Each structure stands twice: as C-alpha cells, then as structure tokens.
C-alpha cells in the first residue's frame, strides 16, 4: 500500500512539474488565463521585441540595397528622396530629450502605431515586387519575411502593452488611410512607389528599434537609463 501511494505521489508530482514547465514555455498572448504560470517575464518579452525590431531593421536595410541594385539593372533610374505620405511622420515629433522624458505609454503607443501603419504597405509591396521581371529571389524572400515578422512584432507589442500598461492602456488610434495606394499603370511610378515604401520603412524600422531599446533599458535597468 505504501508503495502504491508513494508512486502515485511521485507521478502526480512529475506531472505537475511537467505541466508547470510546459506552461512556462508557452506564450499566451491573447488569453487571460488565470495564474502567473502562463506569462512570459517582461524581460524576455522586451528582449524578444528588441530582437525582432533589430532584425526587421537589418532586413529592411538589405532590401533597400537590393532594390537599388535592381534599379541599376533597369538603367540607373534616378530616384530622389521620395516624398509623400510614406515617409511622413506618423507620430508627433519629439527630440531625444523629450523622448527620454516621455512616458512608457507614449513610447508603446508610438511603436504600435508605426507597426500597424506598415503592415498593409508591405503586403502591397510584396505583390508589386512579384510582378517585376528581373527581381531577385532574395528581395522577394526578404519582403515576405518582413511582413510576417512585423505581424509577430505587433502581437508582441500588444502583449507588452498589456503587461506594462495594464488592460486599459491599449488605445488604438487608427491611422489615417494613406492615399498613396494608387494603382498606377506607369511603370516608373510603380518603381518609385515601391522604392519609397522600402526607403521609408527602413527609417521607421530604425525608429521602432530605437524606441523599443529605450523602453527595454528603462524597464530593466532603471538606474542607468532614466534621464529625468
């Protein structure tokens, strides 16, 4: 009798520990499961978000360079700095000192707005790139990758918002519909538009990365990072 009870206890203990282990590794972004066993720590979350942003920025840089190489093969199309709504600032402009003084809430909001702004243009870019004749597969792969990673980053930032700001901190401001989605039959216009998407997305990716890094530093290492 004693043996069986001991065995039962051991099995139960093992199962419970396994469950705990498995549960801790699972990411539960959108579900309000009870208990703290189903959440990731804030540090890990921020670290993953920062890594995502860094990688997205790097890939966007490479994509821009690949696109420029492709332009060279088209005959050296001269594309000046694109102007338009793509590169327009989406958030209120602030200096660094102002940003450093700004609250976490503002940072998170800005990041979220930026990310949500770029999801659709990247999808359009993907379809547009596929229509080119001599587009390199590397460029296609990168744009596809960027789209997917941006969506996962959005999910992560939402989780961050929930964790840092609580449930009520999520105020989604729907950005204005960009009117640049003009289906142009002109081939040069299409090129210019695609180039502006890549060019401006690269800037914003850099911004997103910087914001998230700042946020991470603030949250993790409060003594060194705060400049109040």
């Amino acid at each position: 009798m004693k043996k069986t009870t001991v065995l039962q206890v051991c099995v139960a203990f093992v199962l419970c520990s396994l469950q705990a282990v498995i549960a801790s590794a699972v990411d539960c972004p959108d579900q309000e499961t009870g208990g703290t066993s189903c959440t990731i720590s804030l540090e890990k979350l921020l670290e993953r978000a920062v890594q995502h942003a860094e990688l997205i920025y790097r890939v966007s840089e490479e994509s821009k360079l690949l696109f420029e190489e492709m332009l060279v093969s088209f005959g050296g199309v001269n594309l000046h700095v694109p102007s338009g709504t793509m590169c327009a600032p989406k958030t209120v402009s602030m200096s660094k000192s102002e940003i450093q003084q700004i609250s976490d809430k503002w940072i998170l909001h800005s990041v979220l707005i930026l990310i949500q702004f770029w999801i659709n243009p990247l999808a359009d870019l993907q379809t547009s790139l596929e229509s080119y004749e001599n587009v390199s597969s590397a460029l296609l792969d990168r744009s596809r990758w960027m789209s997917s990673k941006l969506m996962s980053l959005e999910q992560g930032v939402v989780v961050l918002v929930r964790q840092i700001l609580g449930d009520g901190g999520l105020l989604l401001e729907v950005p204005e519909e960009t009117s640049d989605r003009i289906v142009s039959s002109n081939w040069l216009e299409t090129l210019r538009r695609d180039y502006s998407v890549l060019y401006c997305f690269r800037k914003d990716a850099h911004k997103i990365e910087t914001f998230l890094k700042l946020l991470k530093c603030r949250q993790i290492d409060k003594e060194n990072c705060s400049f109040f």
Partner: protein
Amino acid sequence: METTLFICILFTGAVATQSVPPTKQGQTSTLPHLTGCFSRELMTFRCQWETRSLHNTTELEDLRLFYILEKDSKKSERKWSECPSYSSMRNECYFNSSNTVIWYPYVIQLRSQALGIVYDEMSFNVEDIVFPDPPIGLNWTLLSMGSTGLICDVVVSWDPPPSAAENVKIGWMLLVYETQYKEKGSDQWNSLDNGKDTQAYVYGLRSNTEYEVRVRSKMRGYNFGVFSDSIFILIPNKETRIPITAMLVFATVGIAIILMLIVVSRQQNRLMVIFLPPVPGPKIKGIDPVLLQKGQLCEFTSILGTHPGLRPELYSNDPWVEFIEVDIDEPHESQEELLIADSPVSQSPQMSSSFRDDDSGRASCCDPDLSDHDQTDLHHPATSSHDGFHPLSRAHSGSPQPASVCPQDTTWSNSLYSQVSDVTQRGEFVLSPEEQERMKTCHNETQKDKDKNKRKEIEQLVVIPDERGYTSELVASAISGHNSKPNLPKTDQSQSQEQHSAFKGIQNLSAETNTSSLSTAFPTLEKPTSPEYTMVDGVDWKNSLFLKPNTPTTQQKAAMKTLPTPEGYLTPDLLDNITPN
C-alpha cells in the same frame, strides 16, 4: 541618399579646406553656402557654412540660419526658426538635444539678414547625417601563436567614442565597427566587419612584421565616421630560427661524417675486412709450415695421412675402382659433375653450396658430408650422384680403415696408391695390383705412381673446382715441384698460393730437396718402370682421359700457370702444365 552623399562630400570638403586660408579668389562659389551638417550621436547636430572671405565679419554677421521641421503636410504653416546657438565664429550652428528631432526632415536655409535672400538650402533627416566619432583606446593582445612561431592571432579591442558612449549604453543608437589592418608598407587594407563587438579578432598575422590597425564606427544602415588613429602591432619571434638552423647544421654534419666514413672505409682495408670478411681459404688442420721448412716430413705425412681426405680407405682398390665412375650423361658444366650418377640419396645441388666451409678450413671438408649427406648407399658402386667429395666420402666410409700415422701406416701404403694400368672406354681406370706399391715409411718412392694417382686425384679433385680440398694444390705442387724443381716459376705459384702456406712449404720443399722432398711427404710408391705408365694428358668434356704416348723424357712443363682458382686447383686444360712424367 544623394543628399546624404552630397552632405558628406561637402562636409569632407569643409574639413579639408578649413586649414586653407580663403584668400583664393577663384573659388567655385562666391556666395556664402552651406558646407554641411553632421551629427555625432543622434542627439545633436551642427551645420556649417562658409563665405568667400572669412575676414569680413560683417558679412558673417549678416548670415542667418533658419530651419523648419516639416510637419505633416501642412506647408502653409511654415514657421522658420532661427539657429538656436551660433558659434563664436559665426560659421556654425549648433542644435542641442532638445532641438534635435530624429526621424524628421529638416530644412535649413542660409539667409542674409540684410538682404533677405536665401543663399543656400538643404534638407535632411538627422539620422542620415550621423557620423560617429572614431573609437578610442585601441590596444591589442596576443591571442595565440602557431607552433612554428610564424603565425599568430591577435585581439584588438577599443572603447566606443565618448560622445556616443552614453547613447550606445542606453540603446539609443547602435554602433557597429569596422576594423582595418595592413602590413606596414603595403597599400592594401584588409577589412573586418565585426558588428557590435568592441573587439576584433585578427587571425593569421605574421611575426616579425609590423602591422597597422585602425577602427571606425557607424550606425547600422548609415554612414561611417572617420577612422581612429592607427596602432602598430609587432610580434617578435625569437625562438623559431634556432631549431631550424640547428637542424640544418646537424644534418650537414651527419652527412659529412657518413661521407667520411665511406671514403675512409674504401681506403682502409681493415674496415673493408670488418664489413666484408674475406672468404677463408682452406687450411690444413694441424699443419705447421715450420714443419715443411725444417724437413720434418714424417710428421707432415702423418698429418696428411690422418686427414680423412687422404685416408687409405679411400684408396683401397675396390672403392677406388668404384670411385672412378664417370658419368657420361652430364659432361658439361663443371667438372665436379664428373661423377654424377643416379642416387636416391640426397642430391646435393651444387658442390660449392653444400660444401661451404665455415670453419676456415681447419676441419675436413669431408666431415660435414659424412655426417649430413648420404650415410647410406655409399657403397653403391656405379652410382655416385654426389659431387666432389661424396665419392671420396663414400669410398672412405665404404671401407673404413684406420688412418695410420706416417711411420707405421702400412695400410696407408696399401690402398692409397695404385698404378693405373689401363683406362676403359667408359673412363674407368684399371689398376694394377697393388703389391708393388707398398708404402715405405717416409721414404722416397717412385714418384710416378704418386704422380699418377695424384693426377687422378687432381682430376677428381679438379672435377670439383670449387672444392675446398687442399690436396689438389699439394698434389699439383708435388707433381710439379717434384718433376721439375728448378723450373718452377715461383712467381706464378706464389701468386696463386698466397693463402696456402702449406703449398709454399711444399714448394720450398721441392726446391730444396730435390729428390725426396715431396716423395717423402706422401706415402711412397714404387715407381714402376716408365713404359708401364701412361700419362694422362687431359680430360675432355666427356670425362674421358687423354693419355699421352709413353715418353719418359717428356719435357716437364715446369711452369705452372697461374691457376684460375685462387686455391690453385687444376683444371684439365691446365694439366699440360703439370710436369708429366
């Protein structure tokens, strides 16, 4: 991107031309113009301009810088702001961190206040004009060195630029570095892109070579800053040469010693003797050359008599007859095969090989044969497949008779010598009865019998050219020396008889004692009358004997030609040289 490049060029041009006094009248632009704006740490930036003449302060005072931030698309509300702080020289405008807005396009205008005209305008984003300062504090450490000491690895480490260090630490800006190194004197720089790390691993540097290393930083995706000051790396290497030179010296000395040894060994016979010992010649067991000189022939005879090769048993009639079987089937090749016949007993392949004398000739050559080879079937009369001494040994073993000492050996005289009366067609000798031939004790007997027998012996022994038997020489010398003593050319003999002191002794003996020297050495024989004997002239290839006509006064050919074999064996063709009788 083009504006960025343009700004870079302008900036570099501004930096380069700052030291040049602007006295040149032939400048490209006479109007004041912006030379460039740059930022170090994504927090502040500054813009510079220049005018035709810097001395004219009034003109500089007149210049104003205005900027505007493009916000959205509301271009109607363009509110230009003036530069927040001018430098002391009024050619630079500094924007502090509160006035610097990242990720926003700036538009800068250089205006003249008095005239109200715009001299120059440019627009940019601050992040595009970031040129980080070079890193500081470069130093290097040796990481590892190859086994030979020629190749080594080095770690170069540095610190981020002080102006941007803070921003990097808080994550505001991400600096990546590029390391370049080259050999001193070379023009080609090697680049290493090592990302965010503030250290670089440089592999494959050669020792005793000076290298120059420099590092520069940039914000990822943006522009590089200027290079840092170079540092010089020199890795000394002391130990590698020593083992190589030592090895070379050692190798050459070793080769020289070997060559010297070879040369010396060729010239020195002693060394040759050590390496290649000479083939030992046959020596008579127990024979003292002194005996020969002193004329103590009895002892000499006794010694010879005790030798199994000369034992009386061999020369008994019956075995003697048996012994003189000649095999006609195989006449060719060496004459040792004269007595070849079928024998079930061991077939010794070659005479020389089976009779290897490795006891330096002291023991009898027959002894190994007696022990190893056919102990059986030795009495087979007509069958002797053994070369050389086999027949002898057979004969010897067939009729064992004690070897007698010289003074007493009646048996010796009994069977040792006999007179050949006739030679059959087959080559067999027919011997006359032996009662005529009684050996007298150490007395001179008729020489001719002896010669005949000796000749047969010679022939039989000549049959075995490689045989180490000693008797042939002695026999030959005995024959020759006895018959023609003064005609013996000693030179010839001496040439071939270097190693046989016995032979020399015999020669001396023959020379000295004319008549009885050699005859007394051997068991004496009754010398039959000359007509009864015939001389064997030679042995042809069929092993049949050529007999000379009975000429008692045949000239003796005293000269013994130089024997072909070093042991002085006679071949049939040289039998002519033997003094016939």
